[in-house]
């Protein structure tokens, strides 16, 4: 039975991804802060899909704990999916370093820390797949969320370099750009229905990308083109826009 590790397993997107992999016969390792909250999810997955499921305490910002966290997992996972992230509040973050640091450390530093540990293990073993859920917000900084966006931009660049490096060692890296998704993180936002995916659609796309060894995926295909257009706008115009 193959095993998938879900980092940040409490989010709506992570729950959908865990269910998708379990439904395809994967044992799942669910890692999150306050892992005891995941007990109901654990029983749910085990009963629905008849696979082994375990929960593990994991905090993206406790960098020093990452090597030990990974070493004590019951089995080395075949696939690692890094789902955790923190949107935060742009206005607060530009005034308050605590909020700002939380955004940067969750979305970038924490992800780099744990994925360094895991990719080294995968490289030594010469197999494994790493999936990073990044964000289209990282493709160009906008006034409405450039601290989150820049952290995700760093993460996207990290995943790109990691993919390049790991290719030669038999390890595959997938970058996921979900676009808008209906989740707890975006509950307070008014999202355009046509551009917004359900967590289950993200999960399906992630699973397919792992099977087909895709490099960079957008969950709804037109996001690739939306971001292409946004990236094409000359800076002297872009800086005047309210995005």
């Amino acid at each position, binding site marked *: 039975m193959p095993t998938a590790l879900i980092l940040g397993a*409490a989010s709506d997107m992570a729950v959908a991804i865990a269910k998708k992999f379990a439904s395809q016969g994967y044992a799942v390792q669910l890692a999150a802060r306050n892992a005891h*909250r995941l007990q*109901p999810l654990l*029983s*749910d997955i085990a*009963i629905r899909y008849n696979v082994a499921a375990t929960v593990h305490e994991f905090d993206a910002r406790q960098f020093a704990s990452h090597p030990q966290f990974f070493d004590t997992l019951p089995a080395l996972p075949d696939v690692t999916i890094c789902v955790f992230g923190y949107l935060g509040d742009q206005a607060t973050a530009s005034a308050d370093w605590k909020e700002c640091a939380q955004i940067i450390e969750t979305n970038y530093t924490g992800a780099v820390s744990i994925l360094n540990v895991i990719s080294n293990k995968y490289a030594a073993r010469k197999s494994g797949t790493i999936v990073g859920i990044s964000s289209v917000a990282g493709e160009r900084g906008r006034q409405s969320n450039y601290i989150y966006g820049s952290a995700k931009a760093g993460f996207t660049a990290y995943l790109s370099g990691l993919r390049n490096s790991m290719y030669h060692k038999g390890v595959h890296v997938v970058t996921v750009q979900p676009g808008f998704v209906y989740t*707890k993180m975006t509950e307070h936002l008014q999202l355009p229905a046509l551009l917004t995916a359900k967590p289950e659609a993200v999960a399906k796309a992630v699973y397919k990308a792992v099977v087909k060894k895709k490099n960079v995926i957008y969950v709804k295909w037109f996001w690739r083109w939306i971001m292409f257009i946004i990236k094409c706008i000359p800076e002297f115009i872009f800086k005047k826009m309210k995005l």
Partner: protein
Amino acid sequence: MESEEKLFSFDDQLSAIVKQSHHFIPRGNGRCYGDASLAEQTINTLKYDKILSFDAVNGIFECQSGLMLDQVLEVIVPKGWFLPVTPGTKFITVGGAVGSDVHGKNHHVDGTFSNHIIDMDVMLASGEVITCSPERYTDLFEATCGGMGLTGLVTRVKFRLKKIETSYIKQKQIKAANLEEIIRLFDEYKHYTYSVAWIDCLKKGKNFGRSILILGEHAKVDELPEKKKKDPLKLPSRKQITFPFNLPSWVLNSFTVKLFNFLYYGKNLKREINNIVSYEPFFYPLDAILHWNRGYGKKGFVQYQFVLPLEAKQGLIEILNRISDRGLGSFLAVLKIFGKQDSLISFPSEGYTLALDFPVRKGLFEFLDELDQVVLQYGGRLYMSKDARMKPEVLQAGYPRLEVFKSIVKKYNPDYKIRSVQSDRLLLTK
């Protein structure tokens, strides 16, 4: 009306929301026909949908309240179990099944959903969680079953399942030429586990009340055709078509409904048909059409379901007469006979129950007020889960133990923090 809806996935999120709210009503998948789960603030359970335990040997299932019945079926049917009681749609949550204390085609044999509950947890307005059952906190248990969410938010339910050999139903359909005959047939076939009748409300004269009685039993393996024996517990395929737009309201009129009834009654050429069908079309015919309500147009429709005691057959005749005189009948008029039930606030009680859809038209609400009086005069009552318009006096007159119910609501929800548009209208929380 506008409503602020809050969702949660974890217990601590729920208690934080409950503590912060000024007032709210619990809401599941919003399939009550009226205003029972509407309020300025609602707490939606749909993301609180995890299966907590399933004993496939003894048929005991435990889950969080936001889990929908379609999900329950997907897990239990392949293991040889079925819902003890199911309403006509599987797109309702387990919490909703408790709040409405739903009934099904097997009421005369198996009672309502709450008859199969082992125990459940209810979060009160204070944020405190109480485990109740027929033995513990009996008052809370009784007032929560069918209590429209007014005692608290059901968080966890543990209930017993029904053993099945196959996922198929052995169905028998019998045409009845009139009301006398259908009532006689109900009696003749009362040993059947499932029974319900479609009734033509617009027919007058000697065919007044013509109907099709639909009976069913869970099929045994040796009753299946050879092809189906290989996989007797197969889940039905998930095909859904979508009703794409609102039909203009004039499409449904007494002519088109009569035409539909003519075709529906006429499609069964023989008086009696026996066949084996999947559980899906037998229990959930309308679930195959997403947004079927759009067929009623933008103005929508109201459901009207009442029950009359067995001795009040005359009342049933009088109501059917009034409906056919008005020409207001609906596609889906469903007649059933309830068995005995002795609950505090649940709708079913022994007698005839008739469920109707009425497209909203000028004069409809006045007409329904008139029907209410006939229902009360014959000792009947209305179903709160389908209600959007009854007056508080009608509820009061129909439910003899209403005052006891109200006092239990007051005990566990003392400031009426939990309230809905319906509960305010019916003076349950005022």
